[in-house]
């Protein structure tokens, strides 16, 4: 007596429509010939062409990509260290404070993080003449909030990892650093890659903290879009949004698929190794 859960199926259809109809509509209207963003006037790709001529958009995009690359890389290194510290070192002085510090940026409202960082940077600049507001301050701010996300991802991967592999390597005489580079890091590599990608997109996407920490002449792509969107919906914004959504969406889908396949392959390898040793 198994009934189909019609209510749940309906809820899923409604939910995914809620998620995707606005995005689909936006993509559709980016091919609108009409200058009026919401009135259909025939198919056209002219807005995409106009976008490539818009130097402001290109500059903002390039700045955003550079900031995202640097901040994701540094945040991944720091976050991996923090994740290892929390997952592997059961006791050290100030551990409670440390784990609180790591999880705080995850829930802290962005306006609070933003205002405290900018006031801190201004005070620091007054004292030692560094950092100048702009690329540096935005990057430092992005590292600080991305770090937490990397930590969470790496920590949970380490927690689910089989410690026996590391112990075996050490029993066979490997030094801790060798174990780290030859055993631990390769095993948690998918988490590190996921953490980097997450930091990269978070940085590429951030409006609020960037609005607080940016300086004259350092307009990132989200800040540019934010200032435009305040004035209303336009076809060229639809085109820009479509490019970003399609690029990021397919990037995430491909990354997810690759990681899923790598996981499957490793599981298979482990199974075969066990079978071979029987």
């Amino acid at each position: 007596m198994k009934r189909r859960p019609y209510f749940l199926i309906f809820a899923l259809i409604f939910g995914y429509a809620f998620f995707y109809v606005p995005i689909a509509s936006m993509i559709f209207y980016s091919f609108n010939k009409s200058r009026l963003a919401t009135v259909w006037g025939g198919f056209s790709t002219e807005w995409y062409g106009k976008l490539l001529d818009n130097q402001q958009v290109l500059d903002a995009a390039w700045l955003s990509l550079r900031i995202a690359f640097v901040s994701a890389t540094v945040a991944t290194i720091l976050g991996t260290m923090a994740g290892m510290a929390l997952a592997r070192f059961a006791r050290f002085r100030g551990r409670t404070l440390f784990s609180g510090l790591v999880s705080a940026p995850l829930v802290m409202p962005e306006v609070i993080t933003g205002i405290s960082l900018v006031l801190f940077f201004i005070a620091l600049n007054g004292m030692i003449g560094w950092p100048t507001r702009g690329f540096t301050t935005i990057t430092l701010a992005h590292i600080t909030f991305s770090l937490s996300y990397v930590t969470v991802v790496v920590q949970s991967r380490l927690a689910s990892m089989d410690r026996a592999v590391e112990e075996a390597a050490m029993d066979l005489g490997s030094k801790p650093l060798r174990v780290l580079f030859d055993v631990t890091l390769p095993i948690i590599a998918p988490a590190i890659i996921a953490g980097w990608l997450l930091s990269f997109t978070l940085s590429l996407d951030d409006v609020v903290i960037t609005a607080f920490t940016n300086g004259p002449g350092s307009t990132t792509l989200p800040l540019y879009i934010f200032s435009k969107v305040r004035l209303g919906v336009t076809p060229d914004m639809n085109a820009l949004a479509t490019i970003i959504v399609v690029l990021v969406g397919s990037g995430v889908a491909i990354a997810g698929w690759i990681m899923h396949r790598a996981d499957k392959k490793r599981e298979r390898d482990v199974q075969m190794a066990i079978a071979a040793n029987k």
Partner: protein
Amino acid sequence: MAALAPAPQAVQGDESHLPKAHSWRQWLDREAWRKTIIAIPYLWLLFFFIAPFLIVLAISAGTSQVGIPPVIWKSTFPFGTLDNYVFLTQDDIYWQGYLNSLRNAAISTFFALLIGYPMALGIARASSTWRNVLLLLVILPFWTSFLLRVYAWIGLLGNTSWFNRGLTSILATFFPFWVTGDHIQMMNTNFAVVLGIVYSYLPFMILPLYATLEKLDRTLDEAAMDLGSKPWEVFRDITLPLSLPGIIAGAMLVFIPATGEYVIPSLMGRGDSPMIGRVLADEFFQNRDWPVASAVAVALLAVLVIPIMIYNFFQAREARRSAS
């Protein structure tokens, strides 16, 4: 294996039982390595998270002045003043800001739960092939730009959009006494803000709910059914109570950031009843009043301390449970 040689034990973890390092090399291998891994991110967070907050605290106790920096402190003990906090209680805009934020965040959390719970349950009960696809479809919007997803809704809500026109004509057919004209004003209303928040934060509700629901023991359901419970009773007496940790985690992950939300009310909300995030930003960017802006930030954090502590408490309990 381990018995053959007095091999070094697992170096990570608790090492208090190990003999003290004898040589510099050993120290480098064991102690320095461990200390570096802890110290670097620790110092980073102390420097870029705690220090900035202390500065905000200090500035909120200062007095604003025309000049650089636009804040000054008293030269005598206790150097600071609580005037800015007193000021927050006197001007209606701050009270209204906090109340608007808390109300919008609470309503949004409720609707996110209403939409998210059946979705999470549907995903958890789906076959494993479907489950991965459905999960990816929830995570995908979470990865694509937050700003652009809000922008997509602005396109739909506008007075001339197909969505607004279509909704208006549907409603006009069924409730002709209620809907007049060819559009409904949806943009720049509280409705738009709540919708924007629900839309943006829905994945944060679904993912923790899914994580709890997926672990539930279905044999309990079957036992209850065998004993004569109706499906609705099984849900009410078993599924819902057991998924409480997921509900709380999801609700806090929506409620806390939604309270401080700035982008959505700025783009979709009414100008005359701003949420507190927007009040803070205006105070900082337009009035250039650092002390009041800082006081708004500190008070906002004070308001959110309780939900943050609830969230941390449940997270810690879950972590202990899964560890044991």
